[in-house]
C-alpha cells in the first residue's frame, strides 16, 4: 500500500503544482488587464481544453479499458483526478471563459439577434448612445458589457437568469423580433461613470431627480437616449442585413 501511495503521490503533487502555477499566471494576467497578444480568456480557454481532453481520455481509459487491470486504490486515485480535479478545473476554466469572454463585443456579435445593435454601435454616423460611446472611445474595451454589467462574474443572479432565458428563447425560436427590453434598466450603469462629473453635477434637474434616478423610477435614457436603434429601425436593419447604416426614418 505504502509503495503504491508513493508512486502516485509524486505525479499528483506535480499536477497540483502545475495547476497552481497556471492559476497564478491566470490571476496575474487578470489583475493587470494585459495588452499581450494572448488574453486571459485565451489562457483559461486553453486550460479548459487541456483539462477536458485529459479528463475524457483518462476516464475512458480508466473506466472502460483498464478498469479490470488496475488496482482498487489506483482506480480510486485516478478517479480523484478524472472525476474531481479535472472536471473542477474544466468547470472553473469554462466559467471564467464565459464570464470574461462574454464581456467582449465579439461574443455579443456572434449572435445575429445582436447584429443591429453591434452594427449600430460601430456605425460612425449613428447618433445612438452606444455608437457615441464607442466612436468617442469613452469606453476602452468590452463596450457592451460596460453598460450591461449584470452578466459578468460580479453581476447579479438576475443577469445570469436573463442570460439563460434569452438563450432558451433563442434556441426555441420563441423571442419577439425585434426584441424589446423589459423591466427597468439600472441607472447605476450610467451613474457609475457620469455622476460626480462637472457636466453632470451642474444640471439642476439631475440633482432634483437623484432619488428617482437611484431608485430606477425614471431612466437616464428617457432624456438622453435612445441607447440603441429603436425596434422599427432594427427591424428595418435586420431586413436589410447588408446595410450597416440605420437611415433616418422616412
Amino acid at each position, binding site marked *: 500500500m505504502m509503495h503504491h501511495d508513493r508512486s502516485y503521490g509524486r505525479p499528483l503533487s506535480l499536477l497540483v503544482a502545475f495547476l497552481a502555477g497556471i492559476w497564478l499566471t491566470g490571476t496575474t494576467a487578470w489583475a493587470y488587464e494585459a495588452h499581450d497578444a494572448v488574453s486571459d480568456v485565451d489562457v483559461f480557454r486553453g486550460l479548459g481544453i487541456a483539462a477536458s481532453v485529459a479528463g475524457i481520455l483518462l476516464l475512458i481509459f480508466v473506466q472502460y479499458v483498464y478498469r479490470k487491470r488496475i488496482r482498487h486504490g489506483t482506480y480510486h486515485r485516478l478517479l480523484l483526478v478524472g472525476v474531481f480535479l479535472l472536471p473542477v478545473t474544466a468547470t472553473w476554466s469554462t466559467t471564467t471563459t464565459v464570464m470574461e469572454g462574454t464581456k467582449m463585443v465579439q461574443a455579443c456579435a456572434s449572435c445575429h439577434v445582436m447584429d443591429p445593435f453591434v452594427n449600430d454601435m460601430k456605425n460612425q*454616423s*449613428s*447618433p445612438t448612445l452606444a455608437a*457615441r460611446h464607442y466612436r468617442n472611445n469613452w469606453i476602452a474595451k468590452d463596450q457592451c458589457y460596460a453598460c450591461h454589467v449584470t452578466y459578468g462574474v460580479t453581476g447579479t443572479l*438576475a443577469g445570469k*437568469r*436573463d442570460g439563460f*432565458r434569452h438563450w432558451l428563447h433563442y434556441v426555441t425560436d420563441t423571442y419577439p423580433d425585434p426584441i424589446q427590453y*423589459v*423591466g*427597468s434598466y439600472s441607472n447605476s450603469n450610467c451613474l457609475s461613470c457620469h455622476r460626480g462629473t462637472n457636466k453632470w453635477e451642474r444640471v*439642476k*434637474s439631475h440633482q*432634483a*431627480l437623484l432619488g*428617482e434616478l437611484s*431608485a*430606477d*423610477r*425614471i*431612466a437616464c*435614457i*428617457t*432624456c438622453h*437616449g*435612445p441607447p440603441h436603434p*429603436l*425596434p*422599427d429601425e432594427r427591424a428595418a436593419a435586420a431586413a436589410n442585413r447588408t446595410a450597416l447604416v440605420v437611415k*433616418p*426614418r422616412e
Partner: protein
Amino acid sequence: MSHKPDAPNGLTRRELGRLLGVSAGLACLAPLTGCNSLWERQSVIPVDGWHKGVCRFCGTGCGVMIGVTNNKVVDVKGDDEAHNRGRLCIKGLATRDILYSEDRALYPMIRKDGELQRASWDEAMTLIAQRFRESIETHGPASVAFYGSGQLYTQESYTANKLFKAGIGTNNVESNARMCMASATTGYTATFGKDEPPGCYEDMDYADCFFITGSNTLECHPILWERVRDRKRSHPGTKIIVVDPRKTFTARHADLHLPIHPGTDVSLYNAMIYVFLQHNFIDRDMVENYLTFKDGEESRTFEEFKRHIAKYTPEAAAKTCGITPRDIREAAFLFATSKATMSLWTMGLNQQVQATHSNRLVSAMHLLTGHFGRPGATPFSISGQPNACGGVRDVGTLSHALPNGRLIANPKHREEMEDLWKVPRGRISPKPGYHTVQLFEALGRGDVKCCLVMCTNPGQTLPNVTAYRQGMEKAFLVVVDAFYPTETTKFADVVLPAALWVEKEGVTGNGDRRYHLYPKLVSPPGEVKSDLAILVELADRLGHGDLISARTPKDVWDEWRKISSHSAYNFEGITYERLQKERGLQWPCPTESHPGTKRRYLPGQDPMATGSGRFDFYGKHDRRATIWLDRQEEPVDPYADEFPLILNTGRILEHWHTMTITGSAPTLKGIQPDYLEIHPYDAYQAEVKDGDPVIVKSRRGEVELRARITEIVRPGMVFATMHSCRHLINQVTHDVYDPFSKEPAFKRCVVAVRRKSA
C-alpha cells in the same frame, strides 16, 4: 446534510434524489407558475397596462406611453414609435405626477362676501348663465368674452369658438396663444397666405445648417434640440447658428452665436439678405417664378427690393445689433451655402414689436436662397403649447379669425362659416372682437362685463399685469382650471374645476401640423368635469343647445374635420379610428387613405398644391409667396438714464409657463426660478453681490428677485423667468404689442436694478 449512522446508504440516496428532484422541478416550473418576477426582469413601477398618449406640456407633442394601474396613472415613458423616438424631457417625465397634485381644484366655487366658497355645479352654472344672459340682454353680445388657451383640446376650443361667435354673436373670443404664436401666424400668412409651418420635424434629420433664432431650444424644446443634436452627431459638419441675446445652453452648443440686442432682428435678417444679394446666393428661378415683393400694400420689383436692402450693410446692421459685421457675413454664408438650411424660432421672435416683420424675413431668407421645400430646407416656427396650432390657429379661436384661416373682416369668410355652422347669414358679427391686451383693457373699462377664462392664467401672464388685474377684479370672471389657487382665481367670481390631460379625451395639433389623440384613461378626481362638458352645459343654459349639437369629443371632431374639408387645411381624412392607431397624422390629409403631408406647397406632395412647377403657393391669389420690404424701427421703450438696462424674459428647462402644473410636481417643485441674471459689470455698478435681493423696476412696476451674477447675459441686459407666481416679472414688462399680430413684446423693456435695502 444530516445523516443517521445506522442507515447511511439509503438516506443518502433518498436525500440526493429529493434534492435533484426538487431543484429540477423548480427550474422547469418557474416560467410556468406565473412567477414572472422570478423569471423576467421587472419594472420598478408595476403597471397594469400601457396606453398611447401625448405629453401634456409644450408644442413639441411628444408621444408618451402611459402606464395605468387601478385607474391611476403610475408611470410615463417616451413612445418609441412617435417622432420623439422614446425621448421625454424632465417635464414630460413629470406628467406621471401632475394629475395628483395637491393643488387640484376639486369642486366649483362661488365668491361670496369676498371669499371663494364651495358650491354645487348647478348653483355655479345657474349663476354663470344668469350673469351672461343679463349682460348680453342689457349690453349686447359684445359685453361677454371667452379667453381660452392653446392647452384646451381642439374639440373644446372649437365648441367655445362656435358657441360665442355663431351662438352668442360676439367675436370676443381670444386665447393665450395670442401671447405666444400670433406673430408666427401673421408671419406665415403674410408670406404664404396660409398659417402653419410648411415643413416638419423630420426636416431636422436632413438639415446641414440650423439657424436657431429667438429660441432656447435646449431648455424650452429639449426633445427637438436632441433631434438637432442627433443630426450634428451623425453629420459633424452640420452648422448650428444661434441668434440669442443671451449665451443660453443652446448658444453654447452653437458653431456661431450672434448675441444681438433684443428687438434688432429686422436689421440682422436684412443684412444677411444683403450678403445673399452681394454674393448672388439667390435662387433665380424662385425669384422669377414663385415670388412677389411688397412694401405695405404696394407691389415692388426685385430691383426695388435690392435697393431697399442696400441700406442694410452688415456694417450698419452690426452697429444696430451689437455684433460684428464678420459674424453677420459668416452667418449669411453658412445659411446660404449649406445643402439644406432649417430655421427654428419661437418666442424670441414672436414676442417683440417687430415680430411679424422678423417672422416673414426669416421665411424670406429661405425663399430667396431656395432653402425651401427640400428635406431639411424650411423655415420652421416651434410652438409653445400642446394645442396652440390645432386648437387656436386652425380653429381660429382668436378675435379676428374664423376657422381654417378665415377672417372675421372678410364677408365671404363669414358667410362660408355661417353656412357650415348652419346659422342664418349675418349671425356672425362683422366686427372683430378685442384682442388679448384690448380685452383686458375692456374689462377694466367695463365694456366687457363677463369673461369665461379657460385653462390659462392671465392674472400672471399678461404683460404689465398690474394694470389688467383691476379689470379682472371688476368684471364677472369665470375661471375654469384644473388647479386652484392660481393668480387668476384671485379675481374669479366663479371657479370651475376642470379635468386635466388623460382625465378627458381630445385631439391636439402640435408644431408640425400633426394631430394627436389624447385618450381618456382615468376618472377625474372630486367633482371635476371636462372643459367640453362645461361648454356644452353653458350652451344649453344660454339657449344655444341646438347649435352645439356635437357633445362628445368624437362627434365634435367629426364635425370639425368635415368642416376643414372646405379649406386648404383639409384634414377630413384624419378620422378618430386613425388617430387611435397612428402616432399622429399631419394635415393636409383629405382622405382616409392619405398618409398625411410632410411638406407643403409642393406639387405631388401636398394634396392642396395643384400646380405643376417646383412650388405652388396656393395661399396667395397669384400663387407666389410674398417677400416684404421691412425696415428696422426704433425701440418703443428707449433707454433712459433712470432705466439703463434691458430686461429679457424666458424660461428654464424644468418649469412650464406659470408653474401651475410643474410647480407642484414632486420632481420639479424644488427648482427655483426666482432669480435675475445680471452681468458682473452691471452687478458691480449696482453694488449687487451674487444672491443679493434686488429690485427690478420699470416705468410700470417693480419686482423683487435674487441676483444671479453670470456672463450668460451681456452687459446692459438682465434676464428673468416668466414662471414664478411669487415674484411676478410681468409687473415690470411692457404691454406694447406687434401692430399686426397684437402679440405683446415680452422680450424687451428697459429697467433699473438696485440692491434691496435691508
